[in-house]
């Protein structure tokens, strides 16, 4: 493991993140509307009152000045205050991170447990009816709209059968492990579906590439069983292309799943983002998007390092 390399990558991430923050700030402020729009239809809120609120949140200053103010406080760890709730941005984010990590983590776990074997089986039985069936299912999984699938599951399991709560994080006055499990099953299933589909495709194609290599033929010639060849000889190499995708998907977990969380009333980061977007809550949006950006930058570094670990031929200098 080359620590000098990792250090250099981390240092290189600083200008990258600064650039990202500038672009995000510009996009957020260029989007039509603003935090004070919510007062647009209330004739009783006077221009003076609007001005007073604008001053209180620094919204009266030009955007570049606002950016510098935001950056300065961010550098000393002050994420600012949410315009919508008046509470510190960091407090709000921490509050939502737990449910989001639970949901995203479980969804990724399900994805990993299913995508790897499905991808391998598809590759090993390439061209078979099983492979075609799995391919079709994958495309169905990738192209099924999340909100539609969610609605169907809710109607079946909550309305028809009455087995599961249709939405929410826990029951009021409950919150035991089983209660929370009942709440998380449907959103985690819905969330993992597209990931299973896309990951299994990557693993399948990686595996097919590797299975055509000479050393695999050699392994078979030595008399290794198919299972032994795939697991001991092929899998590690077949995983390399999939690692980038999986690592970045892991990183996006902390940004939350906007649609799934909204449909299932899940109190996570994705919903917080949605609410903040609707209210044009600038400090909140910047905090959320910067957190997501840091996650992706770090995940990319981890993916590169994992590459080297999986493939001894890769050396970063």
């Amino acid at each position, binding site marked *: 493991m080359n620590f000098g390399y990792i250090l250099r990558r981390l240092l290189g991430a600083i200008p990258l993140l600064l650039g990202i923050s500038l672009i995000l700030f510009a996009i957020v402020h260029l989007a039509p509307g603003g935090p004070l729009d919510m007062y647009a*239809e209330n004739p*009783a809120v006077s221009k003076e009152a609007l001005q007073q609120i604008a001053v209180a949140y620094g919204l009266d200053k030009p955007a570049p000045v606002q950016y510098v103010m935001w950056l300065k406080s961010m550098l000393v760890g002050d994420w600012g205050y949410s315009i919508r709730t*008046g509470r510190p941005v960091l407090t709000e984010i921490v509050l939502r991170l737990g449910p989001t990590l639970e949901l995203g983590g479980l969804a990724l776990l399900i994805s990993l447990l299913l995508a790897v074997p499905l991808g391998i089986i598809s590759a090993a039985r390439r061209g078979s009816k099983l492979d075609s069936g799995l391919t079709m299912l994958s495309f169905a999984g990738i192209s099924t709209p999340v909100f539609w699938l969610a609605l169907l599951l809710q109607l079946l399991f*909550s309305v028809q059968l009455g087995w599961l709560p249709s*939405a929410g994080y826990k029951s*009021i006055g409950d919150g035991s492990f089983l209660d929370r499990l009942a709440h998380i099953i449907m959103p985690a299933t819905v969330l993992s579906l597209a990931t299973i589909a896309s990951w299994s495709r990557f693993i399948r194609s990686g595996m097919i590439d590797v299975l055509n290599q000479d050393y695999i033929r050699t392994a078979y010639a030595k008399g290794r069983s198919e299972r032994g060849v795939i697991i001991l000889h092929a899998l590690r190499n077949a995983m390399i292309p999939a690692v980038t995708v999986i690592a970045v998907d892991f990183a996006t977990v902390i940004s939350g799943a906007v649609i799934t969380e*909204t449909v299932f*009333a899940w109190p996570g980061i994705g919903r917080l983002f949605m609410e903040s977007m609707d209210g044009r809550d600038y400090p909140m949006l910047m905090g959320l998007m910067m957190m997501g950006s840091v996650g992706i930058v770090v995940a990319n570094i981890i993916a590169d390092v994992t590459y080297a670990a999986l493939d001894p031929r890769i050396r970063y200098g």
Partner: protein
Amino acid sequence: MTFELTRRAALQAILAGTATLATMHAFPAFAQQKGGTLTVGLTYEIDTMNVYSTGFLGDAQAAVVEGLLAPDQHAKYVPVLATEVPTIENGGIVVAADGKTMTVTYKLRPGVKWHDGKPFTSADVKYTWEAVKDPAFKAESKDGSAEVASIETPDDLTVVVHYNSILPTFASTLFTFGIFPKHLLEGTDLNTSSYNETPVGTGPFKVTEFVRGQYVVTERFDDYWAKSEKGDALPYLDKIIFKMIPDTNTLITQLKSGEVNLVVSTPYSQAKQVEGISGIEMVKGPLLSWQHLDFNFKRPSLADINVRKAIAAAIDRTVLSKAQGGFPEPIKSPVVPVFEFYDPNTPEIAYNVAAANKILDEAGYAPGSDGVREKNGERLSYAFMVQAGRADDELAQQVIIAQLKAIGIEAVANNQTGVAYREARYKGGYDLIYGRWITSADPVYSVFWGTGGANNGQSYSNPALDAALSKFETTLDPAARKQAAAEFQKILAEDLPSIPLTTNVALIAKTAALKNFVPNPTNMTNFVHTAEWYMG
């Protein structure tokens, strides 16, 4: 789907439910007593429980925090923590000798307790004013705090409010929104106080749990001051739970599964689905909102009353309503019918395309080669603005464009979003503009059409209207106000600076089990009078 999250628009997106959770269907054995648990679904996330700083209408807040007065189902004020609504007749309002200022005296209800058991007194009322007007307090609404010059509290149950002007709409301002508990909040920072999550009020329900993004649980306050007519202790309900469910499809699903049983404002597009759910009934409630078409008087042709009249005659409001699911109701006055100041005798220009064409022909607007009329080199072609992205508004715009085409007037959509729309509305960056206003229970109309009014982007000025509006807004005598209201409604209908088109209704889907529920059209929400509700 659109998420409408403004305090006002939220009025149309509020959902309420009455149900125990699916897992807790059974009622306790003593169910013959009036009680039960009500589960309310809200489509927005409650930002703060503080009525003065929330960006939404205070649904959950209304069950917890009370003001001195509150609007009833007819948008008329009734006493809550005060013993009567101050008027000139009962001596509650005294106008100064010079006629420029007034003093309002509230007699407070004795024996009212805060949720922590401490007595409610006049000091709390005075503190509320001091806290709200404090510039350091970031509040969404400080209405009426600047007009108060000083407050005296001669005894625990008397509050004397000295105003620095005549403010007939005083009841629509701060003491109605809610009263702060002085003994808990004095000396604290209201922006960061725990009051914003678990407010202590005097209302029928007290907050026991607030979980952000999930729910607010309120439980029966045993020492609540009010009794029913039969002398029963109030409130009846044991609990009201407010669940935050941002997706309206999910909400309807929860209605079906019984996890939520009452929806105070179903989206129009989902009304059909809700009607099919057994045990759920749909109630229509009026809303204090109106949609209107405004003219910019900087365009010479629009400053011509003939053109405005022709446009008024060309618009068929029933089609506008149909285009929006048939739910908005046609109106002829900006004072919507639920108000006592609405004058049913307000004149109305009937839908009549032939008459509209005749008016324009006679006024000398001749159709050009492309069918669009013109006069003195000005084509009757107008830039027509609605707020972009609002599906209902854009539909209405298309209907109006088609109807104007029938009389040789061209309207070209020029829609803007958010701030740009608001700027245009204030500054007159349009020829025609369609939009809506949502008001409190006692609105001021001079801001819209008064000369130089804050929301008058039309450059409209009419001294006769100014006089009538001024009389309406500075007179305290109800009979004189009513007369002034009829007068300004008539002027508006005849001079047509704006065409009132439709008013919205709230579609309330409620379980048949919820009794005594009465819809409230005002910004104080349906939850302003929850004490007598029960599950039967």
